[in-house]
């Protein structure tokens, strides 16, 4: 029996949790789960709270089984996972901010999303009123001769989301970077409580705008898992079509923007053209450039029709013609590679420890892709490769994107060729007589795996919904990779990660 299954057998199974099981364990069970993370036998997929309990989703690295482990916090406390497994530290700080639950033993007790401006403490737990004046944040110190600090943000110099970076610098070299996030915290999970699935899907689609399809898909799949409904085949395939178009658009944007941060504007110009072509095709097919709100629980809202689908064939032909010269351009520009090769190295050990997904993980040897593991339709009927490299530098993260563009083009072609006919949505009633139902989904967005977990009450409304952006396990690693790099390479490294602020801040 696998380590995870063995652990979960020791707890109380929760009924109506799908598709994977959830078990409530005692404190010992929680600590055993923590040990599995430390030993690298399980990967942490998510860690979130609710009023009187904390949950962690884990992946058994040997068997690829997924499970959710819960422990109840009777006195408002639970044993810290972050104490020994650092990727849990920010989620635990967030659990404290939102629910007031204390992770006993956590090495960093500073507030994370709560900047002391909400006028309320523990907004999703036992609420108490507080001031709105803001609190000073104790940045971690760096000591030594000739060090100075550079403070950047939350308002940045470009068209970028808000966040603060505090650099401790020796000459040009970064000694320590510390991120302070939470500026874009909108209270998405608080707004989810009590709304129906239609509104919940719209909120999910506004968690991180660049991943609106991925969030829409993850939310819909979690809701459908909870209710045990299957969507029509045409909807399944159209969802994958949207997901791959979103991946293409974002990867083109990223490849151009990373090169632009190395002052190579030609690539930004050319990739910007390809990105715009993808968005226009998406608009022609689905009526919205970012395809927002096109995925709904139960299916999809829009059918592109045959005329629009022929636009996709034209798009693919254009991309096949115009993208390869850009690959050559990147590959043959020594001055550009001088910036990207060897910059911002992320070690495979750190990527594995943080269960870091997306191009960041795959450029550092972690070949995880939610389309493969746990996998979901229609990808089981499609042929594609998951590119992986182990160099872990900016260059590797660009090459992963380049290869994924090629894979997405091939995937879209297969989807168009085999798109089934039929209905777009299934009628369903979210209200159920027999108690609450829980569902979870893991979906591969362009940036990595998006996790959505939700519980529906008997009237079909959302009781609790947690949305975990891939950035949670990528942002902390950016702090690690920048160490020893020059300040001027920070935009380059940052863009090669392209973490979401809004998706993380929620």
């Amino acid at each position, binding site marked *: 029996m696998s380590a995870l299954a063995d652990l979960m057998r020791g707890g109380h199974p929760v009924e109506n949790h799908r598709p994977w099981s959830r078990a409530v364990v005692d404190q010992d069970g929680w600590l055993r789960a923590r040990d599995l993370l430390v030993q690298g036998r399980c990967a942490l997929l998510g860690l979130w709270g609710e009023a009187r309990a904390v949950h962690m989703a884990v992946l058994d690295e040997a068997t690829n089984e997924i499970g959710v482990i819960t422990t109840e916090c009777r006195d408002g406390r639970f044993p810290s996972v972050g104490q020994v497994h650092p990727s849990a530290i920010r989620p635990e700080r967030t659990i404290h901010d939102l629910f007031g639950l204390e992770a006993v033993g956590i090495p960093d007790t500073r507030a994370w999303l709560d900047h002391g*401006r909400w006028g309320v403490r523990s907004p999703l737990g036992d609420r108490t009123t507080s001031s709105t004046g803001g609190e000073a944040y104790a940045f971690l110190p760096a000591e030594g001769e000739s060090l100075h600090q550079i403070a950047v943000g939350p308002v940045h110099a470009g*068209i970028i*989301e808000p966040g603060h970076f505090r650099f401790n610098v020796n000459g040009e070299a970064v000694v320590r970077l510390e991120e302070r996030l939470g500026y874009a915290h909108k209270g998405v999970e608080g707004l989810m409580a009590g709304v129906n699935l239609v509104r919940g899907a719209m909120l999910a689609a506004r968690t*991180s*705008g660049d991943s609106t399809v991925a969030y829409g898909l993850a939310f819909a799949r979690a809701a459908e898992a909870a209710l045990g409904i299957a969507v029509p085949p045409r909807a399944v395939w159209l969802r994958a079509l949207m997901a791959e178009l979103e991946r293409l658009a974002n990867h083109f*944007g990223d490849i151009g923007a990373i090169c632009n941060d190395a002052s190579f504007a030609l690539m930004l110009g050319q990739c910007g*053209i390809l990105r*715009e072509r993808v968005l226009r095709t998406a608009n022609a097919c689905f009526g919205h*450039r970012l395809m927002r709100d096109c995925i709904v629980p139960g299916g999809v809202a829009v059918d592109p029709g045959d005329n629009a689908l022929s636009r996709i064939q034209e798009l693919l032909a254009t991309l096949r013609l115009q993208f390869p010269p850009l690959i050559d*351009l990147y590959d043959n520009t020594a001055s550009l590679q001088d910036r990207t090769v060897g910059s911002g190295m992320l070690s495979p050990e750190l990527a594995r420890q943080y269960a870091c997904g997306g191009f960041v993980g795959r450029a550092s040897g972690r070949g995880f892709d939610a389309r493969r593991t746990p996998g979901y339709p229609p990808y089981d009927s499609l042929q594609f490769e998951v590119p992986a490299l182990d160099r872990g530098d900016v260059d590797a993260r660009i090459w992963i994107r380049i290869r994924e563009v090629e894979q997405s083009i091939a995937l879209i072609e297969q989807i168009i060729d085999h798109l089934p006919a039929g209905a777009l949505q299934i009628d369903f009633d979210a209200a159920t007589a027999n108690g609450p139902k829980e569902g979870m989904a893991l979906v591969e967005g362009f940036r990595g795996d998006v996790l959505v977990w939700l519980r529906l009450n008997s009237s079909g409304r959302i009781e609790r919904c947690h949305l975990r952006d891939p950035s949670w396990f990528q942002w902390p690693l950016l702090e690690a990779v920048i160490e020893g790099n020059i300040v001027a390479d920070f935009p380059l490294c940052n863009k090669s990660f392209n973490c979401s602020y809004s998706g993380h801040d929620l």
Partner: protein
Amino acid sequence: MRRSFFAEAIAKGPLTETSPGSDDAALAELVRNVNGTARKRLGRSLSIRQVDAGSCNGCELEIHALNNAFYDLERFGLRFVASPRHADVLLVTGPVTKNMREALERTYHATPDPKWVVAVGDCAVDGGMFSASYACVGGISAVIPVDLHIGGCPPSPTQLLKGLLTLLEYSVAGS
């Protein structure tokens, strides 16, 4: 390789599309909000500072697109600048989160007068879907005065361009 990109651009001509023109509703809002003195000073060219006050980043994607070859914002004399101190226009997205309120106020006060504020996206109008949240203040006008709203979720680059061109034409008309 690089030469071929340039040769192709010369042979095929630019991708840049014709101006979408101005927007009547936006013009009416500007007439209500902007005084003549500001119009005289701002003239034909506007520097824009974008501020994300808590958006989902969807609006930022479409604002970025204004710089691509199809829309080419700079041909109109509109350009993005890196500091509010260089800006005539603040292009603000969001619902304004409580965690960003002070940063937005400080950015506004760092922008020299006369200045215009353009609120971008449905959330920037009134907080959108986030208006009821404990973590949000609401729309941009709840924090700083707004001269023009460009709605949409997110607004398309064409909608954005129309709004900004209306602003530009209105400023020229006043000079």
